[in-house]
């Protein structure tokens, strides 16, 4: 096998490996953050969400955001960041109904974003 064929195979393995890793990592990490968001929604509905708990969630997102910006369009990631900041504002202001609504939007985004990296037919086309 000449070096060009080897280089081609290596490139292909790199792409496939990176793609599979991307789908697995992004899906799993977003799943964890999404579950955490679910818990926050329950707490917020019971009016028992504290700022400390929310800050923990925001920190989790901050770590995920760094990875996301490497692999995903920044516009999607920016949307979540914006919503999280807005929700924090509602929490501080005691606007519970808005907080719950915003958290539900964040949850939807956290489910929508990882779905976009799955190589489905409709995503490819």
């Amino acid at each position: 096998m000449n070096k060009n064929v080897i280089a081609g195979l290596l490139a292909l393995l790199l792409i496939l490996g990176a793609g599979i890793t991307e789908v697995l990592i992004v899906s799993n990490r977003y799943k964890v953050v999404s579950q955490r968001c679910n818990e926050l929604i329950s707490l917020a509905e019971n009016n028992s969400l504290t700022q400390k708990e929310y800050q923990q969630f925001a920190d989790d997102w901050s770590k995920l955001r760094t990875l996301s910006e490497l692999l995903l369009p920044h516009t999607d990631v920016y949307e979540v960041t914006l919503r999280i900041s807005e929700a924090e504002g509602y929490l501080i202001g005691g606007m519970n109904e808005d907080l719950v609504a915003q958290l539900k939007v964040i949850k939807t985004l956290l489910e929508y974003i990882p779905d976009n990296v799955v190589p489905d037919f409709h995503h490819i086309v």
Partner: protein
Amino acid sequence: MIIIFLRALIMFTVLLVVIRLMGKRQIGEMEPFELVITLVIADLACIPVSDRTVPLTFGIVGILTMFVIHQLILLLSKNMRMQNILSGKPVMVVDKSGINTYALHRLNMQVNDLLQALRTTNHFSLEEILYAIMETNGQLTVVENKQITEKQQTLPVPVIMQGKWDEDDISRNGIDKNKVQALLKKRKIKLSHVVFLAVDEKNRMTLQTKNRSISFENIEGEKLIK
């Protein structure tokens, strides 16, 4: 700004490595699939550099994919049949009978395009060549007529191409159309049957019709080019 600068540097390095691995040739010698890959790669590299919202990894993966496709096609091209499908076959456009109009038609070429291609190979008259082959990379390969010992010193002026008068060249060179028509009438040739007719300053005429081989002859009498 620094971010764009660094992204451009990274993309340039990736492009350079990939293109070196592909072994790119000059644009004029590219096979069709290589031209496609080159065009696509340029876009794949540019978009992530200039648009910060697009991760650099998108461009890099795209470029690597083009590289993989290139290697795959090279591998498939080892099979003659696949090579014909991917790159096409060389086509003989000039043979001993003259211009192969059917071949030109298949290649979407006109006689003018053929003459231009011949000039780029430093051949100005069809008399100088025996065969001409249009390669799959767009280059024209020519087999010279060794019986012609003297290189063409005058430029044959196309008068009729594919049944139509070349009005620009006729007026520029002061060629008398009536005299040319008389020549055709004498040989019982209709204008629409003429594939190519050219004359030079020494009154040497090149004539090819649809159902006859190409002929080269000296025209007696007054010069056609003034």
